């Protein structure tokens, strides 16, 4: 078990100076929804506005040059972070936009690998966040393709027992989450991708819950596209990433049309700039991209391996602590094998919303509800769960506070 120096890390995050209800300190267990931002990220955004602000890739003045350098510098940082080529990094506003961009690019064409027709299949899983489910549902509706899905085992892992029938020559897209935002389970992307590639399907990975938490290398992951959001990895809101293989991006149709994404324009028609510009119409979220660059620098200075080890140690500690509580049921694996720092649970006779309300009185921030994974809630027969998720600024004492808070919640509602 190896832990980070959380006191030193917390000192970088101004939000931890905030007093919560009843003067409690902030016990932030909701990084799965969004993470907090260190001073370094806030400073990077501020410096962009105070020193370099200009519309990137336009104008001939010093500020335009500096703004473009800062924005493209952020793209380079992201590309190194995931082991990609710099031109394979598309900035979007969020993972949600990245996935929609991709889904629309499929229905914007009737040629090549992106063309779908009735009889084709799009394979997802029952544990997808709505952001990696609904764009594919709708793509299926637009094209006449069929949506199919992997189920979930009772233990909360991807049920791959039917993979041989689920992936067939009909399969054109496999869109799957790297780590479940509800169960914490980490999916065997490499194995699924290998199988998908033998039938020529494209593999899309929702890396929202993985990129912030462990080292990710697209050169070995075997996916064709990955999507993630800056705000879950210490970066600002309003910035997301879509990575795609260069050869595929070259064939892919744009989704948004407008300024910056063109090569040449007449009154009758237009041609497109090469990727990534082709997919970044309009003045982009520049300060946010720069902030994401600073966030990645911050994470890498600590080290993704160390962050992962830290979270595994926290998860281990939390899983054993939570299991001692009577009337508490965990959804998801009970060990830390292929599992990240997200723990969903239900309390007998206490609705998650009520639990969250009492925990809030102790300064504990958890997420309650369906976590944008409604089909998964149905599978487990609950309306929602309470979810604690960990990051580099959490320590064992946060988990102790959570466990005491749960006991207090049960006492408040006279359940024991």
């Amino acid at each position, binding site marked *: 078990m190896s832990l980070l120096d959380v006191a030193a890390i917390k000192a970088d995050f101004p939000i931890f100076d905030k007093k919560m209800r009843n003067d409690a300190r902030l016990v932030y267990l909701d990084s799965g929804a969004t993470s907090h931002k260190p001073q370094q990220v806030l400073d990077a955004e501020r410096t962009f506005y105070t020193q370099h602000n200009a519309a990137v890739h336009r104008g001939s003045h010093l500020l335009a040059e500096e703004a473009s350098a800062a924005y493209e510098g952020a793209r380079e940082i992201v590309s190194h972070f995931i082991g990609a080529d710099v031109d394979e990094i598309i900035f979007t506003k969020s993972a949600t936009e990245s996935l929609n961009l991709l889904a629309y690019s499929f229905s914007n064409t009737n040629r090549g690998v992106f063309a779908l027709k009735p009889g084709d299949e799009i394979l997802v899983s029952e544990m997808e966040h709505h952001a990696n489910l609904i764009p594919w549902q709708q793509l299926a509706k637009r094209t006449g393709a069929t949506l199919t899905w992997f189920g979930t085992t009772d233990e909360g892992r991807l049920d791959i027992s039917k993979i041989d029938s689920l992936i067939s020559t009909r399969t054109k897209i496999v869109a799957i989450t790297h780590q479940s935002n509800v169960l914490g389970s980490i999916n065997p992307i490499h194995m699924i991708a290998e199988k998908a590639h033998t039938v020529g399907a494209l593999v899309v990975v929702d890396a929202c819950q993985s990129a912030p938490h462990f080292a990710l290398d697209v050169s070995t992951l075997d996916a064709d596209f990955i999507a993630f959001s800056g705000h879950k990895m210490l970066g600002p809101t309003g910035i997301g990433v879509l990575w795609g293989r260069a050869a595929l991006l070259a064939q892919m149709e744009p989704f948004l049309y407008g300024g910056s994404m063109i090569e040449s324009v007449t009154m009758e028609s237009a041609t497109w700039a090469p990727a990534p510009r082709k997919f970044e119409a309009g003045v982009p979220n520049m300060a946010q991209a720069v902030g994401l660059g600073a966030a990645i620098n911050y994470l890498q200075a600590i080290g993704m391996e160390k962050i992962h080890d830290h979270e595994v140690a926290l998860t281990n500690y939390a899983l054993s602590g939570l299991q001692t509580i009577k009337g508490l049921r965990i959804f998801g694996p009970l060990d830390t094998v292929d599992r990240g720092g997200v723990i969903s649970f239900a309390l007998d006779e206490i609705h998650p*919303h*009520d639990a969250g*309300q*009492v925990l809030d009185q102790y300064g504990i921030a958890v997420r309650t509800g369906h976590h944008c994974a409604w089909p998964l809630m149905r599978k487990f027969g609950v*309306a929602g769960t309470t979810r604690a998720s960990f990051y580099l600024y959490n320590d064992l004492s946060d988990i102790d506070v959570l466990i005491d808070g749960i006991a207090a919640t049960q006492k408040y*509602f006279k359940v024991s």
Partner: protein
Amino acid sequence: MELDSLYQEVILDHYKHPLHKGLSTEKTVQVHHVNPSCGDEITLNILLQDGVVSDVTWDGVGCSISQASVSMMSDLVHGKSLDEAFVIVDSFSELMSSKGSLQGDESLLEDAVALAGVSKFPARVKCALLGWMAFKDAAIQGRDGEKI
């Protein structure tokens, strides 16, 4: 504790022993409402006879606030004329949007004034309103149906 203004004893009583829960077979209108932010759901039946709500029954899942609130509501509107029921619903809606500034008219809302504290917790107002909005929807459908 601040929490006690939210979870009054009478709310927890209704939560543990909800009234009119369990759907009737006879009904004029059935509606199904969900709270998309938390996944709570309610199915509600009303039976109208000559402009009177002669029966209200419901089933659903939700937090203590939403379950207690629908329990109180169904007891309140049971046996009332549609016009009276709409007055009660409007009074409750006003209470919920008061951000803690209103106490609620006890002669009209009875037990439901205990939910006044909910109006200070913006994230919970929707929980309290779920059943009431379902009833209002069903009542309007039923009234318009009766007129035709």
